[in-house]
Every structure is written in structure tokens, then in C-alpha cells.
């Protein structure tokens, strides 16, 4: 490109780039830089934020050191792990089931697709309220159903053991339609000729599922896995509304901690450091995802 053309292109691009670039500076880049600085201070959110305040409150890496040496951080990670161990297998089986069902060409399939997606459309606030009521120990329908098969249901949200499984239950119910439809688009991309070849070779339905469908679906499954892991670390609204981190801190998770430290205790530095630790976890997961993606995402050039 000639110099004149380059300058012309630059001028032409300015009006098109202006909104996003301004937005990027003000709502992304600048906050990111400020966040790093705040995480190195014990700023309380009350004094006006300027370079002088920041240097007065400077504490170096103390916030990070403190978080990593308190048992609370490791408990919070433990809660997230508890959530993941329960959530991932359940949501995986449920959404795979949904994907397989919706992949059939039957009458009325659209109605089912819309229905399965309704929980995804529901806001977490509404969904959490519904589940709080469904799981009400005495008057909720969940324990009512359990009583039909002779089980006395626990008082879900006020029990240290059962509060997290209750949140998992609500999350699986809300997310399975989303991952189901994602896996469905993966299923649709599988070439039908594989199945025909398998049928000629005399492979049954079950064999076909495990030796064609599942292996060819692994890229989508891998993507879902990473996405649900990232989401698991960002668990928030359902915890806030269903348990507020309780009972006795049994459902405290990272974003809930960031919110509580930042906007309830005004320990802005501590909360910011927490958020950067969250970033490191998500960063590692994203790198894993990109490495895995190289093997399967096919971009048309």
C-alpha cells in the first residue's frame, strides 16, 4: 500500500473504530490497569482514588500473600471443586441426552427444543427464587417427590452438606439446555456416511454411539468442558440469592468473596487481589482451551 492510501485508510477507519476504541480504553484497559494498582494497596474505597492515595496505601504483594495463606481461600477453592465434581458429570449426561433427542427428525421437535431452552432464557434471579421454593424442606415439591419414594429430603439450603448440591441441581437444570443445543450443533456436523458404513458392517446402535458419535463429538465436548469449568469459577448469582454464601460459609465461592470484600467490607485492595487470582485460574483454563482448539476448529480462510 502506498503512503497516501495508508493515510486514507486510517482516516476512513476512525469513525468506525471510535465507539469500540473509546469503550476499550475507558471500560476495559484503564480499569484493568487501575485494578492492578488497587490490588497492591489496602485502599478502603472511601478516600478519593488518585496516585497519592494509592501510594499512601501501598502494601506491595501483601494482599496476595494474605489470601494465599488464609485457610478461607483454600476452602473457597474446595467449595468450587465440590461444585465441579457434582456439576460436570450431571450436566454432561443431561445435555448429551438432550442433544441426542433433538437430533432426531420427529414431529414436534421444535416444541421440545424451545421447551428445553426456557431455563436458559430465565434470569438467574428468577431461577434461583423458583429453586429456593422448589427446595423448601416442608412446602417445596422436591422433598414431596422424594417422600413418594420413601426418602425424607434434607433441608437443602440450610444444611452445610446439602446446600452446594442444591445449587448444583439448580445449575444443571438451568444449563443443560444451553450445552444440549451446543452439542446438538456438533452432532449435526457428523457425516451420516459413517453411520451407513457402520450399519453395513453390522454395528448396533449402542456400538455406533460409542465408536462414532462420542469420538467425533469430542471437540464439542472438550469445548463444553472448558466453558463449564470457567463458568464454575465464576459462580455467583445463584449463590447470592439461594444461600448468600451460607450456611456457615459452606457455599462461599470466589466471585461471592470478591463482591463481599469489595462492596460489603470495602476492602478494595483485598478484593482486587482476589479477582486477579481468579484471572490466573481462568487464564490457565483459556490457554488449555486454545491449545485444544487448534486440533479441531476449522476456520475458512
Amino acid at each position, binding site marked *: 500500500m502506498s503512503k497516501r492510501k*495508508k493515510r486514507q*485508510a486510517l482516516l476512513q*477507519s476512525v*469513525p*468506525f*473504530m471510535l*465507539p*469500540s*476504541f*473509546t*469503550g*476499550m480504553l475507558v*471500560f*476495559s484497559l*484503564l*480499569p*484493568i490497569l*487501575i*485494578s492492578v494498582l*488497587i490490588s497492591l494497596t489496602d485502599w478502603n474505597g472511601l478516600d478519593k*482514588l488518585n496516585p497519592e492515595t494509592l501510594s499512601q496505601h501501598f502494601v506491595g504483594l501483601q494482599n496476595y500473600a494474605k489470601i494465599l495463606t488464609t485457610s478461607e481461600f483454600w476452602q473457597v477453592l474446595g467449595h468450587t471443586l465440590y461444585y465441579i465434581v457434582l456439576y460436570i458429570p450431571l450436566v454432561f449426561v443431561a445435555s448429551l*441426552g438432550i442433544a441426542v*433427542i433433538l437430533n*432426531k427428525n420427529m414431529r414436534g421437535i*421444535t416444541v*421440545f427444543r*424451545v421447551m*428445553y431452552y426456557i*431455563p436458559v*432464557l*430465565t*434470569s438467574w*434471579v*428468577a431461577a434461583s*427464587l*423458583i429453586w429456593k*421454593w*422448589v427446595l*423448601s424442606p*416442608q*412446602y417445596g*415439591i422436591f422433598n*414431596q417427590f422424594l417422600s413418594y419414594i420413601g426418602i425424607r429430603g434434607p433441608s437443602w439450603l440450610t444444611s452445610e452438606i446439602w446446600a452446594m448440591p442444591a445449587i448444583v441441581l439448580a445449575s444443571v*437444570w438451568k444449563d443443560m*439446555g444451553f450445552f444440549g443445543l451446543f452439542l446438538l450443533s456438533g452432532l449435526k456436523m457428523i457425516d451420516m456416511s459413517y453411520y451407513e458404513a457402520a450399519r453395513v458392517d453390522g454395528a448396533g446402535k449402542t456400538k455406533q454411539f460409542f465408536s462414532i458419535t462420542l469420538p467425533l463429538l469430542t471437540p464439542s465436548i472438550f469445548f463444553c468442558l472448558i466453558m463449564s469449568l470457567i463458568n464454575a469459577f465464576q459462580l*455467583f448469582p445463584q449463590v*447470592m*440469592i439461594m444461600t448468600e454464601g451460607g450456611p456457615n460459609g459452606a457455599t462461599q465461592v470466589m*466471585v461471592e468473596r*470478591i*463482591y463481599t470484600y469489595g*462492596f460489603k467490607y470495602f476492602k478494595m485492595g483485598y*478484593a*482486587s487481589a482476589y*479477582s*486477579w487470582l*481468579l*484471572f490466573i485460574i481462568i487464564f490457565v483454563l*483459556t490457554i488449555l482451551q486454545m491449545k485444544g482448539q487448534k486440533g479441531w476448529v476449522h476456520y*475458512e480462510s
Partner: protein
Amino acid sequence: MNRNTWQKVRFYMVSCLIAVIVMIPFLWMVSTSFKSKGALMALPIQWIPEKPTTAAYEKVFSRFPFLRAIFNSLFITVSYTVITVLSASMAAFAFTKIKFPGADMILKLYLASMMIPTQVTLIPLFVIMNHLKLINTYPSVILPAMFRPFGIFMLVQQMRSVPDDFIEAARIDGAGMFRIFRTVILPLCSSAIATLTITTFMEGWNDYLWPLLMLTDKNKMTLTLALNSLNGQYGTEYNVLMAGSLISMIPIIIVYICAQKNFKQGIMAGGVKA
């Protein structure tokens, strides 16, 4: 019974079973919302309210400016969506079709910012909004739509597939950049734009944490915040909470069912044009 019929029966049994599991909490919500306060705690559980009443709905509207919240949600979500789509499509156009010097580097910077979770910028953004005196105003939740790297990324992928010849041809015809953008690029990317529109609308409608920090004035609250604050005040009156939840869900479900058709049309239109 032959094999085909058996397969059909099995399909409908399984799909209906899943539908029942998915729908039962919603049906319970609807049933509860028509109960009186006393019927909530009646044992055995009333699956269908014995004396249905709309008292809960009246309470929702009388105890909280709920109509106002519906308006706030609509206004905020529509503005948020329009700004997201406009800003993202304009940026994607500049990245892919104007190819100004430095475009690749800026695009990489945009994409890199996607890795930073929103929680990292929560506190500084709060400080910035406070400094700009925007707390408790609509712009505080609308303006961040100016930069949504996910949307930009999605549209960049789509616009790359539009041949440069189209642009050249329009330019030779004497069309300016804005006309090319409006009359060539936007129609050709309509299906991707439709997808971005509906996902952004859903996100905006259901957003929780950021509005929770920004909008504390009752008259500025969105529906999700209104529900949240009902929960704080009337935490045990589930008939009121369920009535509010039901109301908050209706608009988004309508949008989704309408968009279902648009999606198909968008894909078909794209196919005809290509």
C-alpha cells in the same frame, strides 16, 4: 408393533420425560403465584390452588414500582443491544474491509481483553462510574456496550467471508464507506447480526451483578433487581416472588420464540445471497 412405531413411542416418552423435568419448576411457579398467603403453607401441598387468587400479582405492583422496572429493563436492554451491535459491526467492518495500518495489532489487543474476567474490572469501573457521576443512571449500565469484544470477534469472522470484490465494485460506483457499510456489509451479515442481537438481548435482560452495583434507586432498577429486592423484603412470601418471576420471564420468552423464525429466515436469506 413394528420397529418404527416402537422407536417413535420411545422417542416421545424420553423427550416428554425431559420436558416434564424441565417444566415442573415453572408449573410450580405458576401454581404458587395464584395462591393466597395462607395456601402457601397448607399441607398437604396444593398442586393446583384450591382458591386461585390474583392477590400476589396485585401485591407485586403495589409494593414495588414493577411497571417502572419493566420499562427500565426494556429501555436499558434495547439500548444496550443497539449499541453493542452498532459498535461491534462498525469495528468489524474497519478491521476486515478498511484494513487500516495497525488493524491486526488492535484486533489482537481487543481479543486479549476477552481473557480478563469481568470481576477484575468491577471495582475500578465502579470508581470510574462514580467519578463520571453516572451511578444510578441508565448510561452506567448501557455505555459498557460500546466495547464487547465477543461481538466484534463474531462479526469479524463473518465479514471475512464477504469477498473484497463487492467492496471494490461499490467503491467504483462511487459509494462512500458508510454507504458500503450500510448497503453491502450489513445485509450480507444479517444472520450473524441477528444472532448477536438476540444473545446480547438475553444477556442484557438477565444481567445481575453490574446493575446491582450501579442501580440502587428503586425507580431505576431493572426487573432482575426488582426481583432481587422483593426477595430481600418479602423473602418468605413465595406467591409474590413467583408472580414477579413469571412476569420477568414473559418478555424474553416472547423474544426468543419470535427470533426462532428470524434465525431460520436469516440463514435462508444468507443462503440465497451467497
